[in-house]
Every structure is written in C-alpha cells, then in structure tokens.
C-alpha cells in the first residue's frame, strides 16, 4: 500500500486465529485522522475500527466528510492535507456511487480489469453470474440499466475477494425498487464472501437494514455509534427498529416526520458522544 501525504497506510498483519488480541485483529484501524481542504478542517480526528467480516454503515449529513474518510481508506487522497494512522488489509475494493465502468470495455472486460490470475476470465464470469448478469458478458456498459451497471461494479469489486469493501453511496443513484433488490444482493454477496464492509450512506433505513454497526459522523468526528441486533435489522423487532431509527435521525439533527410517528411524539435527543 502507498504511503500518502500526511498519512500512513500500512498493511495489516495477516489475521491469525486465537492468539491475536482484539485490536490487532481489526481489519481496519483509523487513529486520529485529520483531513482538510484549505483552511477548513473536514475530518478532525476520526478513530474507527472495523473487525474482519463486520459490516459498518457510515451515516452523516451531506458534506460532513464521509467520502473524504472513505477515500482516505482507499488511498485515493494523495493531495489532501492531513495526518493520522490508517491500517487497512491487503485487498481492498471500492464501489463508487457511479458504477464507473470503462465505456470502451465490455462488461466482462470491466470485471477482469486489473486481475492478474490466469483464471481471471472464468472467475469474472462466475462473479457476473453471481450478480445475475450471466449472458451479458459481451454487452457494452451503455447497453445496461443503471441497476445492472451497479451490479457489474459489485461483481468487479467482489471478484478480487476483498478483505475490505468500501462503498460510497453505491445505491444513491438508483430508484427505490432497484435499491431494495440491491440490498438483498449485497447481503447475499457479503454473506458469501465475508469482507469487512464500510458502507457510506445518507439513508438511515438502508444503514439499519444492512449494517452490524452504524457510525454517525458529525463535525469531523465519530459522534454516535450504535450496534444493530439482527432482530432490529430485519424489523422482526419492530419497536426496536423504530427506536433506533428515531435515535439515528435525532443524531443526524433531523426531526422525524410526523407521519412516521405512531404514538410518542418525537423527542430530539442530543447528539451523543
């Protein structure tokens, strides 16, 4: 991994079983991350750990620095001023909000991009089948719908068997129906490949539905952390789901809409630390 300006990206030691302490077992570790554009600080000391296989959702209002944090983890912020220590695994994949497919390459060519293994093509075909696009290998990206393009992007990132999957509002540009389907697909893929995931989103429901843990960014720091129990995530525990939802909306400084409120009036809780 590259060492970049003002920060340090190290490769995590290989995850060995029982002997490792809780801290060194983390797939991702961020300590005191500071990033600024010009005089204005965007990230003012972010600390974050993600365990192997853990699914973390990063919430925050627009412009709070979610993408800045994700790009720092991806090593894409060469020219941004800042400091801090970042440790990420060897194999990191990124899914962007735009599918970012090369328009001059076929669907298959886009998935094999950068693969060096001799069986790259066979693996890419399997990955495309996994996202439900078998038979579309020879299509051009512009011949696919937005949702299909984003599925190619998912195939491209998962064919590398990443230990960390970084996704920056990957479903933000999709319609509501397609988004729900993509949630199911992402859950299946993550269950099958078990990467650690950092999903940036501005959608509270998406975060609750997908994540094990939700982190809210505020004023350039991690302001709120909530764990999501499986029952709450699947809405089996409807009351718990609703409480978490209100809690998060309050943390984001949004008063819940009155229509979504069955009984108790909204009580905007102070943003916790």
């Amino acid at each position, binding site marked *: 991994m590259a060492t970049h300006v003002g920060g340090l990206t190290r490769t995590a030691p290989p995850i060995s079983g029982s002997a490792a302490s809780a801290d060194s077992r983390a797939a991702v570790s961020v300590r005191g991350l500071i990033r600024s554009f010009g005089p204005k600080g965007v990230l003012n000391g972010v600390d974050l750990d993600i365990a192997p296989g853990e699914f973390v959702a990063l919430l925050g209002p627009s412009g709070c620095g979610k993408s800045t944090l994700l790009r720092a983890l*991806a*090593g*894409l912020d060469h020219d941004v001023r800042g400091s801090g220590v970042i440790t990420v695994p060897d194999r*990191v*994949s*990124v899914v*962007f909000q*735009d599918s*970012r497919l*090369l*328009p*001059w*390459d076929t669907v298959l*060519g886009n998935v094999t*991009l*950068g693969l060096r293994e001799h069986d790259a093509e066979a693996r890419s075909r399997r990955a495309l089948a996994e996202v439900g696009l078998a038979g579309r290998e020879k299509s*051009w*990206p*512009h011949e696919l719908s937005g949702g299909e393009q984003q599925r190619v992007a998912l195939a*491209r990132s998962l064919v*590398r068997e990443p230990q960390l999957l970084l996704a920056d509002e990957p479903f933000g540009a999709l319609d509501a129906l397609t988004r729900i389907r993509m949630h199911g697909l992402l859950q299946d893929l993550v269950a099958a490949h078990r990467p650690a995931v950092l999903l940036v989103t501005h959608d509270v429901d998406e975060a609750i539905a997908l994540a094990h843990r939700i982190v809210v960014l505020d004023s350039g720091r991690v302001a709120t952390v909530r764990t999501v129990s499986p029952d709450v995530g699947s809405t089996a525990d409807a009351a718990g789901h609703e409480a978490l939802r209100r809690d998060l909306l309050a943390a984001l400084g949004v008063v819940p809409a009155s229509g979504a409120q069955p009984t108790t009036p909204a009580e905007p809780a102070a943003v916790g630390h």
Partner: protein
Amino acid sequence: MSAAPVLERPAVEPHQDPALAGRDDVRPTGKRLGPGRRRRLAWLLGPSALLLLWTAGSATGLLDPRILSEPWTVVATAGELLADGRLQENLAISAQRALLGLFFGTLVGAVLALLAGLSRVGEALIDGPVQIKRAIPGLALIPLLILWFGIDETMKVLTITLGVFVPVYLQTHAALRGIDLRYVELAQTVGLSRAGFIRRVVLPGALPGFFLGLRFAVTGAWVSLVVVEQINATSGIGYMMELARTYGQTNIIVLGLAVYGILGLLSDGTVRFIERKALLWQRTLAG
C-alpha cells in the same frame, strides 16, 4: 382510457422483422432531433451531385472547355494515360510518398502525444516545440528542407511527415488529457500496473481523439504532397499536372485534380470506416 389514441402522424418506419409483419404498429412519433439512422452509400450523394452539376454545365455549354474540361474529355484522357502507363506510374509514386509521410507522421504524433500526456516532464519538453511548429506554416519549411536534404524522396516524405504529425499530436494529446480522472482513480483501486493502465484506460480513452487527428492528417498529407510535387519533382501526379500546365493541357490538369479528389475521399472514408469499427462502444450522433 379505452379509446384508441388519435395520432396525427403515422408510424415512421415499417417493421423489418418478418415475425412481426402484419401486426399493428401505431406509435406516437416524437420529434427526432438527431439525424436518424445511417444509410449505406449515403456519403456518395454529395460528390455525385457535384459531378452532375459539372456534366450539366459542360453539356449546356455554360462551362467553356478551355476553362474547365468536360467530364467525358477527362475520362477519355484518363483512358489514354492509363493505356500508355503514365497515370499508374505517377499515381503509384504519389501514393507511396503520401503513405510513407502519413505513416511516419502518425507514429511520431501519437508517440509524442503519449509522452507529453503521461508525464509532466514530457509535456514540458514536447508541448512547447510542437506549438511552435504548429505556428510555422509547413510550406515555409520547404526551402530549408531542400537545403538540408536536396530534392530527393527524403525531403518530400519529410515535408509530409511534418505536416501530418501536428494534428495527430494535438488531437491525441487533447483526448488523453481529457480522460476522466474518475477512471484514473478506478485504475488505482483495481490495482492496474502502469502498463495495464496505459493499455486498458489511456489508449482506448485517447482513441477517438487519435482518429480525429488522423482524419486531419490524411487530408494534410495530400495537400503537402501536391505542394512538394509541384515545386520540385520529376514524377508524381503533381509533376504530371505541372507539366500539363506548361503545354496548356487543361484536360490533364483537371484529371489530376479529380485523382486528388478521389484519393482524398477514399482515404477519408477508409479512416472513418476503421474508426467506426474501432469505436463501437461510442454512442454518438454520427451513429
């Protein structure tokens, strides 16, 4: 609503698919702003119209044959020159000059564009001199080239090369610089090597610009060819025309012009054909 929609205009095009023949096809036809589908051989229309005008002008006597020979005279002249072998001979030598110049010019232009586009040092070293070369008319260099290389083939091919490499460089370089930074980021996140990055991202991304430059280059090659052959040559189409001028043979001059025109049209068509095949992924107005 159960009532059939009332359409003011009928469907635009009938079904091509026999399986659908006989089925109703009533669709509202929105106003089409693009030029519509490509039609084969449509490119012949403009040149044919020109030919028709020329023939009509000559046949009606509006065009004096001493000013512009009749099309049939030119065809007859072509027949005579073909029969005694002069046309083929001069055409072959002209084509060889043009193609050699085109080849070297394209190579030099593309390589310089890559060097200047992929490294800051390359850009600092290359871009300035090319811009200076661009400001000097290619023909102004001919006296110097004659002094250095004499009047043999080297000088002629070099003149064409110098005229060709500039548009190839400019367009390729601009396209290269215009490659979306997001793709560069992508290349980094999927771990492409430098060579892989050039092969999978830079070259395909710059290809549309390269082809645009090539089309300018092809035209430029014929222009330079005419000049070098008319200034200083003992063979070639330009020499044949220059000789005809001293004898007042309008028909041969016009034949030479027609040959240049046909060559230009054919070469541009060839480049466009290759371009369409190579850029299948593009969805543009050209179609």
